């Protein structure tokens, strides 16, 4: 999808990530395109195995090849990262693009002090002495809301609570003011009151710095609250992409509609049973022919099992479904807005 307005910071074109396994070829990401502009938040949603995290790993150059194979284009400010050398990538990671992960305890090094790990990021990219680097690390920890940062900088990750660890991760990720932050399930491991703290911290930092954020999550609530645009992935492909309001209020893909109707809602009195999506996501080794969603789809007809529907629609809202109009009608008829 091409957003109107400023030049995109990153555009991903026809990205494919395959893994060759004994059981066959796993197409984890299968021809995915998207772009993001400075200061924007793009939400990528999907269930386990939909390929949402793998695309972020590919962007960071973190897919081991072999067994993986990455093709397509990842243009960062016009430069294709997939043909960049390891040295170029290394200087880019951390400085221009950085990432935070779901589980900060495994992402932080358990044997180094937190302050040291933040300072290390700065020292890896800048000619700066140990003491000034440490001072900046402490400033960053203050900025992400760690109380008594000067003292806490000398503690180890295990001495931090889950929320504090995620704050430390954010301090590391934002140490060099990257243009793009990949946040892979940043709050999934956290309690909901801590999630609210972390998301509001990310929003604040994004506003101050104009960082573009790719927010990868399975939580449609988090996406509704924070994303400008949303990409829904299913079985390694883009099912639908649209501005957040359009996606939630006028979905055009049956999978998106199914996700929304299967959700239990905090903000509504219970009126009826949930309407789940039948069946389960396909194994990526044996993706159904045609539209990968057709075996679970209430709108499916003959054509769906034969032809993969292309992504169609305007620039602002695209979906890969033969029966988009029927989905839109069903949505308009069935559910109160």
């Amino acid at each position, binding site marked *: 999808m091409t957003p109107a307005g400023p030049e995109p910071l990153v555009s991903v074109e026809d990205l494919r990530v395959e893994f060759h396994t004994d059981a066959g070829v796993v197409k984890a990401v299968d021809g995915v395109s998207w772009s993001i502009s400075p200061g924007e938040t793009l939400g990528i949603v999907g269930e386990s195995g939909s390929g949402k995290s793998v695309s972020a790993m590919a962007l960071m150059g973190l897919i081991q090849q072999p067994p993986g194979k990455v093709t397509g284009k990842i243009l960062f400010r016009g430069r294709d990262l997939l043909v960049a050398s390891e040295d170029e990538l290394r200087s880019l990671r951390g400085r221009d693009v950085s990432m935070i992960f779901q589980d900060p305890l495994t992402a932080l090094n358990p044997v180094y002090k937190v302050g040291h790990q933040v300072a290390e990021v700065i020292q890896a990219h800048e000619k700066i002495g140990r003491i000034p680097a440490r001072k900046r690390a402490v400033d960053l920890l203050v900025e992400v809301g760690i109380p008594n940062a000067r003292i806490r900088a000398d503690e180890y990750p295990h001495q931090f609570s889950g929320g504090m660890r995620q704050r430390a991760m954010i301090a590391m990720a934002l140490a060099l003011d990257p243009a793009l932050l990949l946040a892979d399930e940043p709050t999934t491991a956290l309690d909901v009151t801590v*999630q*609210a*703290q972390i998301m509001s911290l990310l929003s604040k930092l994004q506003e101050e710095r104009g960082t573009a954020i790719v927010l990868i999550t399975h939580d449609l609530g988090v996406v*509704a609250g924070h994303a400008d645009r949303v990409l829904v992935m299913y079985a390694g492909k883009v099912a639908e992409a649209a501005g957040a309001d359009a996606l939630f*209020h006028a979905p055009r893909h049956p999978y998106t509609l199914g996700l929304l109707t299967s959700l*239990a*809602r905090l903000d509504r009195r219970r009126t009826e049973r949930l309407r*789940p999506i039948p069946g389960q996501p396909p194994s990526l080794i044996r993706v159904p022919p045609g539209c990968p969603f057709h075996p679970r789809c209430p709108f499916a007809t003959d054509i769906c099992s034969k032809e993969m529907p292309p992504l169609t629609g305007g620039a602002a809202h695209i979906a890969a479904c033969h029966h988009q109009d029927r989905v839109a009608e069903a949505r308009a008829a069935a559910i109160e807005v």
Partner: protein
Amino acid sequence: MALLEVTDLVKHFPVTRGIIMRHQIGTVKAVDGVSFSVDRGETLALVGESGCGKSTTARAVLRLIEPTSGSVRFEGEELTEASTERLRELRREMQIVFQDPYASLNPRMPVRTILTEPFKIHGLDPGDRVAELLSLVGLAPEHQGRYPHEFSGGQRQRVGIARAIALDPKLVVCDEPVSALDVSIQAQVLNLLEDIQDRLGLAYLFIAHDLSVVRHIADRVAVMYLGAIVEEAATDDLFEAPSHPYTQALISAVPVPDPRKERQRTPILLAGDVPSPLDPPSGCRFRTRCPKFALDLSPDERQRCIDEPPALIDRGTGHPAACHYAETVAVL
């Protein structure tokens, strides 16, 4: 008479130091005086964040861990004093479904064996019940010969549910039964739990951290914080008229899948982290993070929060809340 009546339940874990000269250096007050009841055919949800003691409460109720003190009555019979033998008999009536069905199903047993075990333990003949149970939870009877790893996460949870209802219990404790599942599968399992309740008339003690799930499935909700219940109400009451500051913060922090609504909402951000249950604050346990305590109360009012633990009673908000200054605030 309620099916399950829990009064002043306490579970303290000693913290010890030393190997030869072992001595106790503290006590984790995981559950610190919890009372609630569950009626026949009803769903009571215990909600709260990690470490609030909700799972410990559930396990202590079933005596999977020994309670430190307090009373648990099931159909009027005191469980805390029941002999091992009597307890085993009673467990026919009270079962549990765990969060991670992979960890709670024996990987070396085919489903048939997993589902006949409960019958064997109680000296009963399973007859055709295995096939019946499988179809009741939406699995094919042909799946009897399969091992747990051959099922998807959602299907494994169905096996866990089939095992729990095998002996027609009156109470099933569901400990985060859908939190490990993908969204589209969660709805399937929640519908299944409701169908089973309708058909068998059993009661659920539903432990969860996901408030959206709780609003959908529960009849009543009890909110826990740091080992104690801070508010209890009928489900819609709790969500529409929360009166404890913690419940209000908790509900306000959950994002709803609706961008237009989300733009209108501002989460109540709590300061800091949950205090250690080794050394909970005096008086009201929530006061160290309470926005009301920090911003709205006069010094005299605050002193009361510091000195006096608030009782879980109705202070005019229509349902009990453990806050001296409870008042209803709409946060949705």
